[in-house]
């Protein structure tokens, strides 16, 4: 509901006020952007040669993580959680890799469309099970993560398969200036094409409504079950896009799920999306992914033991959630 009042307010206000209101409403994201800027400056300081290649590598490694984070953010905003995103990405990635291997370039288009439909179907299965069985989403999606990972192993025993040339060209390399990696452009286009229309639609409003107060949403006429399933379907679409980006960036499919589920939860929390639902967007989580990835790069540059880097990531995740819940506790008391 606060969305509509904010919109009314901003419609009347002057641009400067609008900016101030935006900053106030997105204080967390603005803070994150500031932190990102500091982090980039620090990176440049410790590694003066960090430049075009660094940005290119960053964009490629961020793309699948960012898509996973967007997928997770959508479900979390609706008040749920999905622990099977990593497995879904593995499954969609190997299906794409197996179907594209040795096939003509044009048939790749059919494969990509098919894999995206598969993603929608996987999301529908997850969402349908969560809504119909009334089993908590954590249990259902944790169990389904094993189902999808098993399916991925059935499709492909060991890493293999291939990718169509044009799909690789879509995200590898740069567009125009060397400083604009194609992977970043692809991410912006995907999110802009899918998320922004959703966010502005009635479905987007329902998504936030059921996340913030399910009973109130139900009483205001929102079809809670249908909206939850739709959130999972949209999540499946983004997971499939993430799987495709994995296949495209590596050229093969790997049947073992990567750390994407955990990283997506971390990025969502870091990105200011409340795990209780109804709050946040997809921009914050994407910034969160970039931050997590740069921290990892910096640690490698600094010669920190990669295992200690894992420890640091765990502590960052825990620390961010702790600070977040402390702020919420303060607010609920005040």
């Amino acid at each position: 509901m606060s969305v509509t009042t904010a919109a009314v307010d901003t419609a009347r206000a002057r641009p400067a006020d609008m900016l101030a209101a935006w900053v106030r409403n997105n204080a967390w994201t603005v803070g994150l952007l500031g932190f990102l800027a500091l982090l980039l400056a620090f990176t440049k300081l410790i590694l003066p040669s960090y430049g075009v290649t660094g940005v290119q590598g960053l964009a490629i490694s961020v793309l699948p993580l960012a898509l996973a984070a967007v997928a997770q953010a959508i479900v979390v905003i609706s008040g749920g959680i999905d622990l099977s995103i990593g497995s879904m990405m593995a499954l969609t990635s190997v299906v794409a890799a197996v179907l594209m291997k040795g096939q003509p370039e044009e048939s790749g288009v059919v494969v990509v469309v098919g894999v995206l439909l598969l993603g929608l179907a996987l999301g529908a299965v997850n969402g349908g099970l969560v809504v119909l069985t009334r089993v908590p989403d954590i249990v259902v999606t944790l169990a389904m993560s094993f189902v999808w990972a098993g399916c991925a192993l059935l499709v492909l025993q060991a890493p293999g398969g291939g990718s169509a040339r044009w799909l690789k060209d879509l995200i590898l390399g740069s567009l125009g200036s060397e400083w604009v990696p194609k992977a970043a452009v692809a991410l912006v286009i995907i999110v802009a094409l899918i998320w922004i229309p959703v966010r502005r639609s009635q479905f987007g409003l329902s998504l936030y409504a059921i996340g913030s107060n399910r009973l109130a949403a139900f009483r205001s006429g929102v079809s809670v079950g249908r909206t939850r399933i739709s959130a999972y379907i949209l999540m499946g679409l983004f997971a499939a896009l993430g799987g495709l980006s994995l296949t495209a960036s590596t050229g093969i499919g790997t049947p073992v799920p990567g750390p994407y589920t955990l990283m997506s939860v971390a990025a969502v929390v870091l990105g200011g999306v409340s795990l209780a639902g109804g709050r946040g967007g997809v921009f914050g989580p994407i910034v969160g992914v970039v931050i997590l990835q740069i921290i990892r790069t910096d640690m490698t540059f600094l010669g920190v033991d990669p295992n200690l880097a894992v420890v640091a990531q765990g502590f960052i995740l825990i620390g961010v959630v702790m600070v977040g819940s402390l702020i919420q506790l303060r607010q609920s008391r005040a």
Partner: protein
Amino acid sequence: MSGSVRTGSTRNPWLTWAAWRGLFRDRPMIPLVGLLALLVVAVGLVRPGMVSPGWAGVIMRAAVPLAILAGCQTLTMLTGGIDLSVGAVASMSGFVVATLVSGPGTPAGIVVALVAAALAGLVTGIGVGVFRVHPLIMTLGMSLVVLGFANVWQLQMVQTGTGVPGEFRWLGSGMVLGILPNSLLIFIPLAALILLGLGRTGYGRLLYAIGDNPVAARLSGARAWQVLVILYIISALLAAIAGFLIAGLTNIAAVTLADWYVLPSVAAAVIGGTSIMGGRGGYGGAIAGALILTVLTSLISALGFAEAVRQILFGAIVVAVAAVYARATTES
């Protein structure tokens, strides 16, 4: 509920939906043991002659670590939480002992491992109890931290080499007369402690109370944060003991050895009738759940299916069983 069952279906009370619902709600052990018997019969049919006292011993031996880890999940799920760090903590404990065998000796290694596990549990408990971090996130993050430290430890200890101590091998994989696994020596006291603790002590009742209705528990004077901090320490210690047994069972010391067990442990607790929303369930069902999953694994390998099929079946079973419980326990 029960009254209508008796009057409405005097002729054939077992065929009504309400009777089945009541059975799952009130006495989940009966259908669980029935399912277990059914699976054993299935194994006997698929591989005639496979079911024997020796086979039962092997099944029990494999089920004991899983049942202990299912205890971690049962206890935490009763309060509405979950502990996904059991895999990392169990692997770390077994690994730490294995690296310290040749130097300070096994007893010192066990102490170090238990202290490390308790520290991990303490941090998790403080995060969940004091800072109100969602247990899922807290334990996922903690498993990263524990795994990272275990890896660092591995690099430190690379020159000493590792070896699973003989005592663990005896406990984890030894059997009396080829029938009774030695790990029961650890498991029976632990299980009795958990069952009695849940049923007969104030602490056990606090776990149910906090999971069932946190606000009511707080208003009745329960200090949730203290209960939760102790709970996650207990859970980590149980995971460490399971880790010792797993290291002994497989004769392997590796930092990811027990990761495999995380989903099955949740599955065993869910199959045992413990609700992840808290306040409902018990440990007896989780033990039955661990046995069911182990027999099922045996059945799947007897049928010659691949690992992938096992994963898919495990996942599907968890969803199906949880759905049955959800139907049985909600009034509609």
